[in-house]
């Protein structure tokens, strides 16, 4: 009896694992196909730079934003320039740079993929309610990731993370003591949401490109995948 139960559970786990792996593969393929479009790279670079500057500007709590306005025109551009350089790690610790760079990369990939999905939905002209809802969710998630990443930024050791005043309001001075942990949890949450949103957007991109340009998807499937297109469509559904 025990063996049978173990067998059933294990086969279900295997099935789940196989299905998940296929989803990741499809998402990866969808993103790769989306990358072939110029629009993808425009969206990617713009998101990367704008969000990168904002994230680095808020690394000092509100001081960076304040500095934009108290230092005159020269100070404004100098602060923006230094934030832009920090996106590429100039003046930053390597560990800080890698963390920010990772979040930026995920966020930019996500937004660029969503834009491709929306373009293909528009080209397709027949957008189901489900497709529209998924695109909307994608946008909402990208907003959520941006918000979480911003809240998690800053120097919790110094008590200048953006989350600190909120925690101070909720828990008085005791709130400052948990700012670091909360900041890390929020950053991790941003990364997890970004990864799963990217998977979902990747699958949507694959489905969207397949619908509008069936030849591209079909050729790639025959070449690279042991699965048939029908099987992929089942997973997408």
């Amino acid at each position, binding site marked *: 009896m025990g063996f049978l139960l173990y067998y059933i559970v294990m086969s279900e786990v295997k099935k789940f694992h196989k299905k998940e792996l296929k989803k990741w593969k499809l998402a990866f393929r969808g993103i790769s196909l989306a990358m072939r479009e110029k629009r993808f790279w425009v969206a990617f670079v713009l998101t990367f730079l704008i969000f990168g500057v904002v994230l680095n500007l808020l*690394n000092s709590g509100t*001081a960076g934003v304040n500095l934009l306005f108290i230092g005159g025109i020269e100070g404004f551009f100098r602060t923006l320039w230094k934030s832009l350089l920090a996106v590429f790690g100039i003046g930053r610790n390597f560990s800080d740079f890698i963390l920010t760079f990772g979040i930026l990369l995920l966020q930019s990939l996500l937004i660029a993929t969503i834009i491709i999905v929306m373009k293909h939905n528009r080209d397709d002209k027949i957008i189901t309610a489900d497709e529209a809802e998924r695109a909307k969710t994608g946008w909402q998630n990208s907003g959520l990731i941006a918000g979480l990443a911003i809240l998690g930024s800053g120097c919790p050791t110094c*008590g200048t993370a953006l989350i600190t005043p909120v925690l101070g309001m909720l828990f008085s001075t005791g709130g400052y003591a948990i700012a*670091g942990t909360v900041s890390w949890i929020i950053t991790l949450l941003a990364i997890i949401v970004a990864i799963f949103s990217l998977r979902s957007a990747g699958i949507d991109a694959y489905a969207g490109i397949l619908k509008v340009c069936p030849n591209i998807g079909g050729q790639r499937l025959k070449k690279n995948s042991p699965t048939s297109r029908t099987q992929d469509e089942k997973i997408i559904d």
Partner: protein
Amino acid sequence: MENIGKIIRTVALIAVGGFLIALVIFNVSGGSTAGEKAWDLRTTIGNHEAKNHFIMYTDLACPYCDVFSRAVMENEEEFQQLIAENDIMVEIRLMDFLYHYGESKPEMSKWSAEATVCATEKDKFWDYYHAGLKALWDDYHSKGIGTSKTAPKIEGMTRDYWVNIGEKVGLDKDEFSTCMDSEETTRTLAERREKTLRSGAQGMPYFVEGKFKQSGFDNTWGWEEAKTFLTAGI
């Protein structure tokens, strides 16, 4: 009807007059010199009669505070000229803020604050503060240790680290060490923390100059940003 008009006029006149008197009182009380507002003149730099009072609430365990202080130290000549030209007195209010309210409760915050209080008592605040910043830079920050939330933490530091800095600036080791453990030092720091919290500080560094109040600094910034902060409240 005429009476009501008179009453309204009288009330309005009293209100306007009261407001003007309050404004005068506010300006008179706000007109005292920077030196009169300082917690301790020994931790200030610049003219004590200055019109502008720049305060930096800081903690030696806060890496971003050190970035600001180092930027100033490395441009001392320009800094002196800036505060003289703009009639600013700069005051450093150093304490163990992060030991009490910070997450990791770094003991270096407590030791360094105690040591600075004792150095101030011997009129060696600036020598000790600069030596402390230099030691932290040489031993840790320049190697990327303890510089941010993702950087490796400062480990293995003992109380002696701060006692030895005292000895280097010419303080008697035993006397200095006894002072660091004294109740008076503990009391001084408790008072400072309480006053700092009342001033609205939630993190370090916290800058105040007139109506300008700002928390935080960034490790990609330097002297130009420090200069902007120093003159922001003028």
